[in-house]
């Protein structure tokens, strides 16, 4: 943008203006140049990232035997993590966006987003030293907890709807989470007790993990770490859907859940799919939790009761020792390239799907 031309005049102000014109023009130029340099650096970085991987990759014979178990390990960890993160994150997002009173929402959303900032190494520490040994002794209890959880919550909720006076129900609208805490804790207690009983009866061998550091532990902790990502993105998508849709459905006699399931969720579906994809991508690339709590044994199997070794954890373990230019180094970079490509692909897919949501919301 050009500097305004100095006006030829003799007033002192105008003279000063004219005097400073050169300095101002120089500043303008300097800003433009430095902005250009910054943009060029970004472009360079964006090109250099994949280029350095591609340049150092070397395919040695037998690479599949080394890289494939790692890839399988990464997928195993990410799939289990998403299996945990999706019900928790999506459920919490639905409740937060549609059922929670505004004050609650204003509290819950930053809380979960703050949880996203918890360093992975802290979660990995808890997973490796506490959760893994505990879970190894209580796999049965955990399995029972999983089976009982949904039925118990549903029974408790439906009983409340049938039995509680309408006045009470009106007062508790929006605060159903507190009502769910007693059945949740009860389920925990029942599962622990039943697990001990079954273990005493000698059924523990059915589900005995081969190692305390296994896919189950990874799934739980990594799922907890990824949950805020899924929550945050799908909550945004659901909250952006106009509430009129739900109100209209309710006016026509739908229950709250029917309105949500038939009206809101289909509209917000692209946003939720994007949240799922990004959560998966994040779980694939997460290093510390997997490094600390997975046992790091490269296995080609999908069981939650065996260990795994993921690409990211393998990089953190082996890259500092690999000699530059060696075959080992080349293979490490190959696995890194795979991980990089996968994450890039997932992010691009998520971005495309989110674009669709945005267009759909504009249409409404």
């Amino acid at each position, binding site marked *: *943008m050009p*500097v*305004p031309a100095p006006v030829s005049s003799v007033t002192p102000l105008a003279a000063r203006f004219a005097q400073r014109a050169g300095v*101002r023009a120089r*500043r*303008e130029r*300097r*800003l*433009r140049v430095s*902005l250009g*340099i*910054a*943009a060029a*650096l*970004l472009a360079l970085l*964006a090109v250099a*990232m994949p280029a350095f*991987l591609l340049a150092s990759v070397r395919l040695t014979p037998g690479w599949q035997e080394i890289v494939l178990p790692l890839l399988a390990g990464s997928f195993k960890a990410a799939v289990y993590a998403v299996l945990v993160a999706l*019900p928790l994150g999506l*459920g*919490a997002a639905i*409740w937060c966006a*549609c*059922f*929670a009173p505004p004050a609650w929402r204003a509290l819950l959303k930053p809380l979960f987003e703050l949880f996203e*900032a*918890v*360093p*992975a*190494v802290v979660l990995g*520490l*808890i997973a490796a*030293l506490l959760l893994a040994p505990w879970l190894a002794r209580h796999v049965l209890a955990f399995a029972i907890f999983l089976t009982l959880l*949904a039925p118990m*919550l549903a029974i408790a*909720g439906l009983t409340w709807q*049938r039995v509680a006076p309408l006045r009470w129900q*009106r007062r508790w*609208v929006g605060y*159903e989470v507190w009502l*769910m*805490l007693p059945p949740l804790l009860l389920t925990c207690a029942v599962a622990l007790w039943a697990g001990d009983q079954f273990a005493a009866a000698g059924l523990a061998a059915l589900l005995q993990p081969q190692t305390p550091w296994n896919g189950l532990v990874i799934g739980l902790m990594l799922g907890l770490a990824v949950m805020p990502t899924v929550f945050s993105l799908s909550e945004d998508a659901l909250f952006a859907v106009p509430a009129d*849709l739900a109100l209209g459905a*309710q006016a026509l*006699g739908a*229950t*709250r*859940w029917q309105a949500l399931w038939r009206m809101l969720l289909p509209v917000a579906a692209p946003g939720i799919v994007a949240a799922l994809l990004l959560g998966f*991508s994040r779980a694939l*690339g997460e290093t510390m939790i997997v490094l*600390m709590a997975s046992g790091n044994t490269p296995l080609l199997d999908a069981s939650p009761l065996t260990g795994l070794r993921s690409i990211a954890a393998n990089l*953190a373990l082996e*890259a500092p020792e690999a000699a*530059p230019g060696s075959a080992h180094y080349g293979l*490490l970079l190959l696995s890194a390239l795979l*991980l*990089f490509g996968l994450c*890039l692909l997932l*992010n691009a897919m998520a*971005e495309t799907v989110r674009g669709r949501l945005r267009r759909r919301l504009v249409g409404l």
Partner: protein
Amino acid sequence: MTAFASLPRGVARRGDTGLWLTAGAVGLSLLALVAVLAVLLLQALRSFAPAPVAELRWNNGGTEHTLIAAVVGQDARALLVRGSEWQRRGAEYRRIARADLLQLDWPADAVTLHLRDGREIHLRGDAAAWRATPMPLLPPGPPGFLLASTDVVDVVAANRLTPTQAIGLVVQRAWRFVGGAPGSGGGVYPALVGTVVLVLLMSVLVMPLGVLLALWLHEYAGSGRVARLLRAAMANLAGVPTVIYGLFGLVLFVNGIGGGLDALLQSDVPRWGGGGLLWSSLTLALLTLPVVVIATEEGLARVPASLRQAALALGATRAEMLWRVVLPVARPALLTALILAVARAAGEVAPLMLVGAVKYTPLLPLDGEFPYLHVSRQFMHLGQSVYDLALAGSDALRDPAQAYAAALLLLVVVVGLNAAAIVARNHLRERARELAV
């Protein structure tokens, strides 16, 4: 507005299974969150709590042994005790089956001496007398064992602590843990210094570049093809796994530039070609660049267009408008960006394992020797310490306990920073609303 604020009579009694399941999901997530925090807090506190000291007599294959030792764990079948560490920290753990125990006393005059290097010596005597003894001390240890009284950090009458004394001891030990060097009972001071210096250096590197980039993307680039491509690149860089950044730093900075520098300077020991502070902060700067750009762009978008137009109408050039009007108004956004970047960088461990954080180094990156800040040195990092203490410690019981304490410290720093960013952002939003009116 919430979509379902009302409860019409007609639908109140009709089952809403899904609703209850989503409420359960919130409850379960909150429970998990609380459990994680509670466990961390509890374990961290436990690592500082003093262990009671017992006098044991037991029978081992026909021979009788006696020992004064701290009881660090027990179950129905056995006791886990830690005897006096005459030689080496963590070397005197012993598991004694309850069946073999002949006698177990908790003598009231038990004294624990804490030594400078983290060792403990348990004996019976008068704590006050031990505190007052001039050097050298002669504890009833192996023949010839001599102890300088300057080595004794702390004398604790382990079995006679009142609750207030115990709490005071925990606080004192926690303080020494934060401020102490490793070896003196395992402090995290060097790791803390390393983390802070690393993060400061990273901020100096990333902030100018990030703000310039955000300015370019938001104010100059428009919506041409180059701008769109670079925007997509930025979004994708944000999604790249952090360990890949570490690998990038290792290949480009450490092996590439650092190795080249070493060859150029003809140094026979790798000075730049090993990992170091500079390479780590550069790597972290790349990693946090998207964070800074996205947060700054958000702030720039909130500056009302009327302010820009007013500045331009008064004859300001674009540079002047940006420098004098837009950036000052967006200052809270810059602060938010900085805080978020720092929080992200402070909690990141995986890339640092590749480019220069080490388990132990005797030298701090910042000291009194010229040039004061040693950017080519390897350094210790809080997150890396958590990892190393937890999985590669020399003391199977005390090191993991300290890992919890270090993790709690890290968590407090990172979560505190993020909470500050949230507050700053809210402040920005309010201000933007005021300006827009």
